C-alpha cells in the first residue's frame, strides 16, 4: 500500500474528525451503560492530537504513532485514555522508524495495539469492551492478507468483523469497565468503546480506499 508518513498523519486526522463528529453519539451510548463521557473523552484526546501532529512533520511513522499514543494517554484520562494510548504506543514501537508503511505494517501495528489493550485492561473477548471489536478485526485482517488480498480489502474485512463485534456486544453482559456494574442491565446496549474502535477502523479503510 505504501503509506507515507504524511499520509499516515492525514489518516490519523481523518480518524480524529470522525471521532469529533461522533462525540455526541459515543457519549449517548456511554450514558446507557457507563458514565456518559466516552465521546467527550475521545474527542478531547483527538483534539490534542490534531494540535500535536503538525509539529511532527519530519518524524518517522513510529514516532508519529507513539506521539499520538502519549498525547491520548496524557489528555484523555478515563479508561479509554490508557487503552487507546497504549494501543498507539505499542503500534508505534512495533513499526519503528519507517518512512513508508506496507500492508504487513498494518498487520503488525494492529496486532501490537490489540495486545497492548488486552495487557492494560485485562479484558478478554466477551467482556463487552474494545476487545470485542478489535480482536475479530485483527484476525480478519490477517486472514485476508494471508489470502493475498490488498491492504484496503483486508482492512475492509476487518471493518466488517469489527461491526459484527459491535453488534455482538449488544447481546452480552459487561464484565469489564463501568458497564460491568449494570450486570444484566447492560444487555441490549452496544459497547461505546467497541463502537469507537469500529469507527476508527472504518475511517482508516475509507482513507485507504479513497487514495487507491
Amino acid at each position: 500500500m505504501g503509506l507515507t508518513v504524511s499520509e499516515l498523519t492525514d489518516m490519523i486526522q481523518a480518524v480524529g474528525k470522525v471521532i469529533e463528529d461522533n462525540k455526541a453519539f459515543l457519549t449517548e451510548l456511554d450514558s446507557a451503560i457507563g458514565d456518559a463521557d466516552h465521546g467527550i473523552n475521545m474527542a478531547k484526546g483527538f483534539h490534542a492530537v490534531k494540535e500535536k501532529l503538525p509539529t511532527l512533520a519530519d518524524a518517522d511513522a513510529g514516532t508519529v504513532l507513539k506521539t499520538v499514543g502519549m498525547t491520548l494517554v496524557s489528555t484523555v484520562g478515563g479508561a479509554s485514555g490508557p487503552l487507546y494510548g497504549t494501543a498507539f504506543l505499542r503500534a508505534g514501537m512495533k513499526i519503528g522508524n519507517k518512512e513508508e508503511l506496507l500492508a504487513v505494517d498494518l498487520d503488525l501495528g494492529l496486532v501490537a495495539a490489540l495486545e497492548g489493550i488486552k495487557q492494560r485492561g485485562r479484558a478478554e473477548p466477551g467482556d463487552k469492551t474494545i476487545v470485542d471489536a478489535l480482536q475479530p478485526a485483527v484476525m480478519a485482517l490477517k486472514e485476508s492478507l494471508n489470502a493475498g488480498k490488498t491492504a484496503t480489502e483486508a482492512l475492509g474485512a476487518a471493518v466488517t468483523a469489527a461491526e459484527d463485534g459491535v453488534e455482538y456486544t449488544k447481546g452480552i453482559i459487561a464484565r469489564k469497565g463501568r458497564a460491568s456494574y449494570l450486570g444484566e442491565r447492560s444487555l441490549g446496549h452496544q459497547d461505546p468503546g467497541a463502537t469507537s474502535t469500529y469507527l476508527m477502523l472504518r475511517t482508516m479503510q475509507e482513507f485507504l480506499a479513497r487514495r487507491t
Partner: protein
Amino acid sequence: MKKLINLPEQVVEDMLEGMVAAYPEYIRLVPELNIVVRKDAPMKGQVGLVSGGGSGHEPTHGGFVGKGMLTAACAGDVFTSPTPDQILAAIKEVDGGAGVLLVVKNYTGDIMNFEMAAELAEAEGIETASVVVNDDVAVEDSLYTQGRRGIAGTVFVHKIAGAKAQAGGTLDEVKEVAEKVIANVRSMGMALTPCIVPAAGKPTFTLAEDEIEIGMGIHGEPGTHREKIRTADEITEHLTKKVLEDLPFAEGDEVAVMINGLGATPLMELFVINKKVAKMLGERKISVVRTYVGEYMTSLEMAGASVTLLKLDQELKELLAAPADTPGFKQF
C-alpha cells in the same frame, strides 16, 4: 442545565484555583496539571500519600490534602480519572525519599491511569505502592467483573493511612494499615435525584418524582434497584443492614460511622439517617467510637446519602483519633 460555572471545560481549573486561594496555608496548586499539593511537601523521610480521581466529589480529593491526610491529590475532569503524567508529577512533588503510597478507587480508568503512573515512577527510581479501595457493597464482588467500587469509605483510608505516614510509618507499614482499613470498611448509598456533568449538560439518568435508586454509585452508576421513596428510617435500615451483613459486623465490634451527603442533601436529613444508624448499632451491641456526618464524598448536586461503617481495632482507633488538619477534614 443551570449551574454556577463559567465554561464547562474550565470548571475544574476554576474550582482548584478557588480552593487554593481559600487555603493557601494548607495547599498549593501545580498549575496546568491540576494537582493539589500539601504546602510543605515533600516532607523529607516521610511517606507521601497521593490520591485522586475524577472531580465532582469535593471535598474529595483536594480538600483532604494537609497534615495527617493526603500529601497530594490529582484532579481529573469531572467524573474522569486523572492521567498518568498528572499522577507522576504528583508523585514527584511529594516524594521525600521514603516512597509514595497511591490510594486508588476501584474503577477501571483510575486503576489503569495510576498503574501507568506507577510504572513511570518506577522508571524514574521512585518507589511506590498502591492500594485499591472497594467499599461499596451494592456491587457484587466478583473475579469476573471490575468488582466493587470505591466510595465514601476511601475517606477513612486517607485519614488512617495519612496518620500512619505522619507518624513516620514506612511505606510498607502505611500500605499495610491502608489495606487493613480497606478490609474492614463497607458502604452503601442511595440517590433521590441525578446530577449533571457540566460537559454533558444533562443528567446521566432520570428518576421519577417518587422514585429512588438504592445502591447508586458516586458517578451515577446504577445500584441494585429502584423503588418508590419510603421513610428515612426504612431506607436507612435497608442500607445499614446490607453494610452490616457484608463484613459482617457483629456484637461487641467497635466502629466508626460516616453518614455522607452526596451534594444536595441537607445536614438535617443526614442527621435523621444517623439517628436510625445509631439506634440499629445500639440494638446490635456494636459500639460507635466516632461518627462523621457531612459531605465527604459528593456527586455534584446529586441528592442522596451513603452509610459507611469501619470496624476498628486498637491500631485503627488510635490512627483515626490522631489529629488531622486539612481544608475539608479537621480533627484536633
